């Protein structure tokens, strides 16, 4: 009987997803699921979110035809979905505004968040300030050092930033600590999960809030070219900007490419290629691809971009990999740095190191596309936060 329940229950993308959490969190997750379903059906909620996205966050973001980049890499038409122009500098605000509105609807007075690069932390601190919610952000100590500016931004916005010293002191440890807080605080606190990871319903909620990226891009491309693009490319850490771009195009059957962090190479601990080199396991409450050793211990990861430095990936990506709906590839630190410089020089746009992974992969395959093709890249964030990292890596001409 139990086997059948597994087959028929919600919260799964094929064999992936689920709710691998302690009993204590089952009720708050059910509460969240039901509040979210109500909110989805409520035109007033949709209108309020739409209003904030438009008048506060600056949506719709442009779909910019990057001829300078196309010429520089001898490639087809390239469109950049300019999430870097969102308020706070990345796509993360789409989700933070949605979830903070949801927190208000749930009657919670406090939100917590994990952050790697600091972009989700800044976005959540921003939405919390706007919507009068207390905010605490958990951030690995290593990440706090490499993203010091974002730490100060969050504090300026009134958020408390709590350093996490366990493990590798990066994103996964920040998620661990946020989960530990939430299991004790959910009575008055909403966990504003930053990516399409975690137990059901988080992967679905975050995907829905980020799908605005793909909905806009699809319409904008139709307006500009009179047809759909031939290929979509986005970076994948937890996978929120990529799923946000891909999801509204799923039925169109076009080519979609997710770019993972190749780091310093394919040696264990030196990359963030959960889909490329990982295996199926459980992390942070859901079943997906995970970087783990042969005894089921989660491995350390490395990427020059803090936002991709994560040993797991959203369960829906695992599903799309298995179904062959999306190709998952990787780009290493050096290539991402070169692509950062490339976009600066060819377009006058400084991309986040995360987004630079998508640029780098595009550059490496551009010549294989017919010139008449069109590629849409999600430029998920701007690179101001990464200037120090980029400078110390040696691009300083």
């Amino acid at each position: 009987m139990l086997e059948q329940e597994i087959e028929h229950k919600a919260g799964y993308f094929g064999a992936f997803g689920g709710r691998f959490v302690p009993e204590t969190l089952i009720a708050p997750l059910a509460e969240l699921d039901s509040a979210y379903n109500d909110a989805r059906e409520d035109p007033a909620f949709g209108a309020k979110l739409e209003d904030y996205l438009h008048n506060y966050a600056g949506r719709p973001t442009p779909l910019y035809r990057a001829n300078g980049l196309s010429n520089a890499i001898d490639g087809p038409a390239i469109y950049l979905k300019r999430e870097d122009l969102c308020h706070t500098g990345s796509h993360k605000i789409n989700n933070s505004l949605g979830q903070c509105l949801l927190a208000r609807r749930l009657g919670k007075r406090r939100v917590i968040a994990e952050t790697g690069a600091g972009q989700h932390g800044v976005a959540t601190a921003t939405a919390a300030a706007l919507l009068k919610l207390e905010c605490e952000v958990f951030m690995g100590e290593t990440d706090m050092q490499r993203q010091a500016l974002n730490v100060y931004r969050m504090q300026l916005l009134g958020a408390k930033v709590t350093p996490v010293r366990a493990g590798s002191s990066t994103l996964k440890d920040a998620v661990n600590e946020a989960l530990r807080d939430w299991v004790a605080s959910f009575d008055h606190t909403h966990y504003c999960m930053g990516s399409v990871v975690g137990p059901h319903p988080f992967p679905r909620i975050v995907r829905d809030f980020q799908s605005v990226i793909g909905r806009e891009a699809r319409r904008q491309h139709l307006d500009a070219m009179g047809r759909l693009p031939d290929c979509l490319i986005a970076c994948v850490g937890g996978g929120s900007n990529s799923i946000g771009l891909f999801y509204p195009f799923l039925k169109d059957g076009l080519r979609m490419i997710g770019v993972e962090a190749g780091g310093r190479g394919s040696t264990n601990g030196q990359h963030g290629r959960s889909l490329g080199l990982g295996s199926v396991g459980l992390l942070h409450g859901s079943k997906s691809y995970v970087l783990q050793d042969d005894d089921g211990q989660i491995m350390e990861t490395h990427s020059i971009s803090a936002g991709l430095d994560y040993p797991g990936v959203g369960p829906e990506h695992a599903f799309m990999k298995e179904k062959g709906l999306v190709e998952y590839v990787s780009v290493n630190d050096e290539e991402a740095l070169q692509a950062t410089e490339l976009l600066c020089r060819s377009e006058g746009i400084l991309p986040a190191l995360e987004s630079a992974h998508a640029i780098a992969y595009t550059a490496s395959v551009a010549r294989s596309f017919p010139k008449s093709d069109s590629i849409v890249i999600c430029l998920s964030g701007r690179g101001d936060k990464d200037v120090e990292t980029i400078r110390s890596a040696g691009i300083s001409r």
Partner: protein
Amino acid sequence: MSRIDELFQSVKGARAALIGYTTAGFPDYHDSLAIASSLLDSCDALELGIPFSDPTMDGPIIQESSHLSLEAGTRVSDVITLAGELRDKTEKPLIIMSYYNPINSFGAAAFAREAALAGVDGVLLPDLPLEEISHWKVHGDRAGIDTMLFASSTTPPHRLERLGEMTNGFLYCLAVKGTTGLREGLSEDAFEFMRRARESCKVPLALGVGISNAEQCRLAAGVSDAVIVGSALVKEALDAFRSGGDPSRSAGRKAAEFARSLS
């Protein structure tokens, strides 16, 4: 009848049982065996925790013991071996507590088989709630290993009944909303929850998480059939380990103190 069922039969109407916890392989295999043995001198049953790299439900004490155990190179197979060595010396129930990923990686069927062979009586899998438990339970049942489920003060009434029906051995009732670790006192919430659990469930009820001293043990024993202590014991062992003392003697002494509070 399983060893766990026999334990509850034997204490029924007399006293609450004491179930101790230690992280297997902490601080290393040899000392861990000594800690477990000395806990079994006073406890009625023992939980052996498989260390995990990302213990999201644990507070600082068990995070630390898990970290030290992994640093010492502990593997899932070592935990099974440890249980086997303990089984040679005791007839008391041995329970493995684990996040599911290490067991999933080992292979649920192989784990169930080997653990049963080593003399393990039951498992506690805190990140497999009712909806996900069948991933494991088919294998546990086949190998004759009891699978105990968890209930929380947040568990709604109909679900609480269901948990009571589905669990083997006993129902692990969570005394706090939060991670494992020391607490100032038992909350009124916990007592109210235990009243509710008693009405809804016929199985023995064990109360655990956050029970930190002998007085709290005594109070917990008043509303449960078993009291589970983990962090308070591991803390004794950790403190002794850090100060160059004998972790097994310190943890054993604390367990004896807790046992006296229940007699």
